[in-house]
């Protein structure tokens, strides 16, 4: 059988102009190719300053923060400084921050911890149909354990239906969990209004703010939330570390049992290098918020507006106003997201899609389905998520490549006819 040339490995970590090693010759990979990372809602590059801050805590200052000798005390001191940095970014007190392994653990701790602690008071939980799987799967498990879960629907613009949420509250409701920024569309939910409702009914209110912290200003006191999940690797910090904000006075059963770490709220030796990285990432994110709000927003808007102007049959999924500054979710009729993603990847552009796939099923994005977006547009959806590390040249390159790539895919489609 004829053999296809082996594909090249894109293993240059610099994300700059790289000359890819040619194994076969004569293909377009042999040319210098720009690399653009527009998948920052999946994960972000670690900021070099974050990496530098972490380095000493692997080889030199490697102590266990619970030890009373000098190695341990050094680790404890920097860990508490990092806790303050995290707290400062979200307007919390340091003692209200519990370090976890990331967003998923924070979400699990919040939901399972509060639900089990308040089990005697009630067994009803309210969340939304557009949450991250860390919330949805946890709620499904809680339902198996005897809790009743109500899933609030979202409108076509991505905003959840507040009247439905109000109507869902009952005497047995002990917990409401609503995400702050949706990971697929970037839609920002009106948390302050939900917090008022929760407070008036003495219901614990949690938000998964993994996509919000470091991207838009977050102030837990102004928002009125009781618990908030955040993750380091979404804000140019390392993977494997996150935090749960727990408002003073809010009680929950710990998810992990063991030693008295994190004031007995999360057992397990603290991941000191990770925590240092998260702290530094929070400090840098705080300094960079204005940049995201102005420069990154302008990049996103130029990308989106030009795409809508230049590419026929393209549309935006979700609200264009109640939205984070770094995300646009676009649908291209007559294309398939995964195929488009692969084609863009071969041209150095990293994005993601709501098309069927990653989960190993044929079901497309539960978020876009919940918004009532037609199936063909969901299958042709691409999410572009930017960060403060992106540049005008990145947008220029995508605007050069994307229209041609979509034209090629539409030309190949036996069904597509321009409307």
């Amino acid at each position, binding site marked *: *059988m*004829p053999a*296809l*040339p*082996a*594909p090249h490995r894109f293993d240059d970590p610099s994300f700059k102009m790289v000359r890819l090693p040619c194994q076969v010759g004569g293909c377009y990979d042999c040319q210098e190719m720009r690399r653009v990372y527009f998948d920052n809602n999946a994960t972000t590059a670690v900021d070099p300053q974050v990496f530098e801050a972490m380095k000493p805590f692997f080889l030199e200052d490697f102590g266990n923060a619970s030890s009373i000798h000098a190695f341990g005390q050094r680790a404890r001191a920097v860990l508490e400084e990092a806790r303050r940095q995290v707290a400062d970014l979200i307007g919390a007190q340091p003692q209200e921050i519990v370090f976890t392994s990331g967003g998923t653990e924070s979400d699990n701790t919040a939901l399972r911890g509060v639900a089990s602690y308040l089990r005697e008071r009630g067994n009803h939980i309210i969340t939304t149909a557009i949450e991250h799987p860390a919330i949805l799967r946890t709620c499904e498990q809680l339902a198996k354990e005897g809790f009743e879960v109500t899933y609030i629907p979202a409108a076509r613009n991505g905003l959840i239906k507040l009247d439905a949420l109000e109507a869902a509250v009952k005497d047995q409701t002990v917990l409401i969990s609503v995400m702050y920024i949706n990971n697929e569309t970037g839609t920002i939910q009106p948390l302050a209004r939900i917090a008022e409702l929760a407070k008036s009914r003495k219901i614990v209110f949690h938000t998964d703010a993994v996509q919000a912290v470091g991207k838009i200003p977050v102030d837990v006191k102004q928002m009125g939330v009781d618990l908030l999940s955040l993750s380091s690797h979404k804000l140019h910090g390392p993977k494997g570390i996150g935090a749960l904000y727990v408002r003073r006075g809010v009680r929950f059963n710990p998810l992990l049992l063991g030693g008295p770490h994190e004031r007995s709220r999360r057992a397990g030796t603290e991941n000191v290098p990770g925590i240092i990285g998260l702290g530094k990432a929070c400090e840098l994110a705080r300094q960079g918020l204005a940049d995201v709000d102005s420069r990154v927003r302008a990049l996103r808007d130029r990308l989106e507006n030009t795409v809508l102007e230049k590419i026929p049959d393209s549309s935006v999924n979700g609200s264009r106003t109640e939205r984070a500054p770094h995300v646009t979710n676009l649908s291209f009729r*007559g294309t*398939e997201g*995964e*195929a488009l993603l*692969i*084609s863009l*990847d*071969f*041209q150095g552009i990293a994005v993601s899609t709501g*098309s*069927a*796939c*990653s989960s*190993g*099923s*044929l079901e497309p994005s539960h978020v876009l389905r919940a918004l009532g977006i037609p*199936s*063909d547009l969901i*299958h042709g959806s691409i999410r572009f998520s930017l960060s403060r590390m992106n540049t005008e040249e990145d947008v220029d390159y995508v605007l050069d490549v994307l229209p041609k790539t979509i034209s*090629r895919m539409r*030309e*190949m*489609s*036996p*069904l*597509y006819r321009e409307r």
Partner: protein
Amino acid sequence: MYSPTVRRLVAELPNSGRLPGAVSATVENPICGDVLELYVSIADGCIAESRFQATGCPAAIAAGAAITILIQGQSVEAAQQITVEQLLEFLEQLPPHKRHGAEMAVRALREALKY
């Protein structure tokens, strides 16, 4: 989740497009909505040229492209014998839930060669 060969076929789309005057077949997967159209031009009992069009996931596109490569220059009888397993081998496998892409391509080929 997709093999290097699948990824490369999707990126390069070899032999994509229509082939006017050739025999053709269109197959659909009603579950996921994939559509694959295969064109085959026959001369002297052999496959002179083959092209495909597809709307669908990478599996359907890569399988369509792969089958046009596999049958090029082969006799009609040999092309009719190509199996889903051979196509999957060429593609370095497909994810289990995407196997239908290869099945569609083989079905389209057999339909086209009926004429």
